[in-house]
């Protein structure tokens, strides 16, 4: 979806920072998870999110890993228990290594690695692993399109354009990541938000656009399923402008 040699230029000093702050909440979301490292049922260590390394029930040997995970979930009150087979983890690392092929971007590698983590036999977790992230659907959606188009995202806070992220999609994926700054100094007010799309359209075809209030963008990013939440926001008529994204959901 993003090419390895993507150019990231003319990003808004403040706006991109705000996007980073929003995404940081997702990337560093508190995940109260008990992790138990074991070798074939012999526990080597267990770490609780708040208490650090713990003993007791969490470190007693077991024969049924699924049952032990469920017991610990009920006992500790954490949001997730993950049992890690230390020998299997080495295999997992090898498989992650194999994901690191030259043409694959960092973004895709990280997401594929996370999917592998939740599905690998060395990792047993309760409750069910997090659902497949939205990115797969976004990638599939973007690949249904021809190459050479722009995607525009703009978010307003009050009347001011608070942040914009504009991407050019080429043959192999996103090859330019930029912002409204790249298209000139003018930043349209909320009442004329669509002018942002019109300015980009002077440089090439706009294949997708989402213009909304910053609070709604944050709501979408913070949600468990951003595509479902985006559909809801659009369906409720809360966006300022959208085009080309209806087949995302």
């Amino acid at each position, binding site marked *: 979806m993003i090419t390895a040699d993507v150019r990231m230029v003319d990003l808004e000093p403040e706006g991109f920072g705000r996007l980073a702050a929003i995404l940081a909440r997702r990337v560093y979301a508190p995940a109260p998870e008990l992790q138990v490292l074991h070798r074939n049922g012999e526990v080597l260590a267990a770490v609780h999110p708040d208490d650090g390394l713990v003993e007791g029930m969490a470190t007693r040997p077991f024969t049924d890993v699924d049952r032990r995970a469920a017991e610990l979930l009920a006992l500790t009150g954490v949001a997730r228990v993950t049992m890690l087979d230390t020998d299997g983890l080495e295999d997992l690392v090898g498989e992650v290594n194999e994901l690191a092929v030259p043409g694959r971007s*960092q973004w895709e590698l990280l997401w594929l690695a996370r999917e592998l983590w939740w599905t690998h036999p060395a990792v047993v977790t309760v409750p069910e692993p997090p659902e497949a992230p939205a990115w797969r659907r976004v990638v599939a959606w973007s690949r249904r399109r021809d190459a050479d188009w722009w995607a525009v995202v703009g978010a307003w806070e009050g009347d001011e354009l608070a942040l914009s992220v504009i991407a050019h999609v080429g043959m192999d994926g996103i090859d330019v990541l930029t912002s409204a700054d790249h298209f000139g100094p003018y930043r349209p007010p909320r009442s004329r938000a669509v002018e942002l799309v019109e300015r980009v359209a002077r440089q090439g075809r706009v294949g997708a656009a989402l213009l909304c209030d910053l609070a709604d963008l944050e709501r979408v990013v913070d949600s468990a399923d951003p595509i479902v939440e985006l559909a809801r926001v659009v369906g409720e008529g809360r966006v300022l402008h959208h085009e080309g994204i209806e087949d995302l959901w």
Partner: protein
Amino acid sequence: MMARPVEITSRGLRLGGEDGEEMRLLSGEVHSWRLDPARWPAVLDAVADLGFTAVGTYVPWAVHEVVPGRFDFSGPRDVERFCALAAERGLRVLLRPGPDCGGELPGSGWPRRVLDDPRCQARRSNGQPYLLASATHHCHPPSYASTAFLDEVARWYDAVAPVVARLQYPDGPVVAVQVDNEIGFHFQANAYALDYHPDAVAGYRAFLEARYGTVGALNATYGTHHARFSDVDPPVDGAADPDPWRIDWVAWREEHLRQAIGTMAGMLRERGVDRVPLVHNHHPRTEPPIDMGAMERSAGIDLCGSDIYAPRQGARAVRDLVRHLAGSSKLPWLAELGAGWLSLPWLLPMQVTPEDEEVAACRALLGGLRAANVFMLVERDRWFASSIAADGTPRPERTATWRRLARLLDELDWASLERWAPVLLLENRSETRRVAARDTLGTVVPCFSQVMPLDDRLTSIPHDDTDELRQWERGMAEALDAAGIEHDRATTSSLPDLRRYEAVLVPVLGALDPSAWDRLLAAAADGVRVGIGPRLPSLDDLGRPHEFPSAPGVELLSEPAKAAVLAPAPPFRCAHPAVDLVCWSGGGREVLVTFNASAGTVAAEVVFDGRRARFEPRWTPAPAVEGEGSVPVALAPWAVQVWEVSR
């Protein structure tokens, strides 16, 4: 040894010999190859206008080697033209030709063909290459012991060193050259993750031979029966009670980094880069495998600094790193003082506002740092929020901090001031190597949790000693901070001149390098107050029982909080826990810098001896305050204030 045309001083650089020009080293990073060359003049004009004395730039291997064996230094890669333009504007240049560059380059600046060469790749103990997640693209980074890799580096240096050499002062504006970038096993501190490349293991065995002399001496220490050094395999996992075999491996990793930098430094010197200092920068870690003091003194370079990127909440991390640089280096220098941030929101999202940059820059440059390279001063691909746009247009909301700082440093003649820091707090490297030797899961630990969400606390074997050591380290530092006693930091493995200090503190659970003990005793005999705790040393750096000479001048502390008792009273004190003070004086003048390290507004009192004093604010406009014995100060959230004090 003859003096070079450019020498490092405690305040910056001296150009042209004993009576030469004293130069403040305040540079801004500008990636020339990423900008339109037609814009270079405007960009450099903007840099000079802000008061910077130099620019820094990588000279990336992968950018200049356009096809294997052919190098291009033309157009946007024309380093000489860029340097000439800088010189026309009175700017000196810090060149950074790698081999590693970072810089959000696809392969960190190493050519893809080198990264994909199995002979060059760093290895885990199971033979697997190590996956490093980096800018937009991942790679299997190289082993700095690999002869195949070092041969490739030599070929790169054959091409770039003549270009660099021509540009050296006094014939050109280059006043320093950086060897490699942030060496340190690719940010992976786990003792058993890297590097098990066959050439690295051979180096480890040579290290053991140099240390023990005979395999019999090694066997006596290890309790083994090896026939030869080549039979000794490195450890691949930790132990709760580390043995000499594991501690030697941890120590070797530190030495390995120095050997790598020393080898590359030697290559550059042999190729004519011999008139300016060679420098290196560590990422902001001070514990094993990093030893900045030892790197500076024994790796064939002239200066070792560090890098830090911190929003306002990280101001005290900046403070502590600057303290370490002040204690470990002849010139406390940040090779990368963060400004703006890399545009990789899916890996390391961070917001950096103008206020964040002011906090970090002031905490560094007004808190003890003497030299810095602002990274990135000028925006480029894969970076946002720099002070100067890629076309040379300054962003006033961001350039204001640099302009004001440069002016303040001039107006207050900062170079003539000394920071009051009478105490040295040491990291006991013998103890921290034991902590490192307790690492585990070296074949699994990922470079970042985004690659694999493994809880970091699982990668170290728990031990009461580790907890006790951290308690003492933290407690001693907190005691000094609570008492308002500014201090330097260093490690026992690379001690500075201890007689510079009135008190030296070091946590000791039992292990200590006997040579460090001798230095502490000598300092105590010279009148330095030496405080250790919780116990007297009884084990050497390998954990073997050792008879340490008695210590008449050394004070055994019963608790970390007692650390402050050994220190002199500070000239200025503030009881508010969020306020840090740094006191400066020289030539009959006193300057006090106050930092509010909190998100709240602070109203506090600065207390001093009974004479009446007037505090004139020099950073944020405000009325002067006067008082006898104390003055009230009000600090906005995260705010800095500089006071010129007259009594």
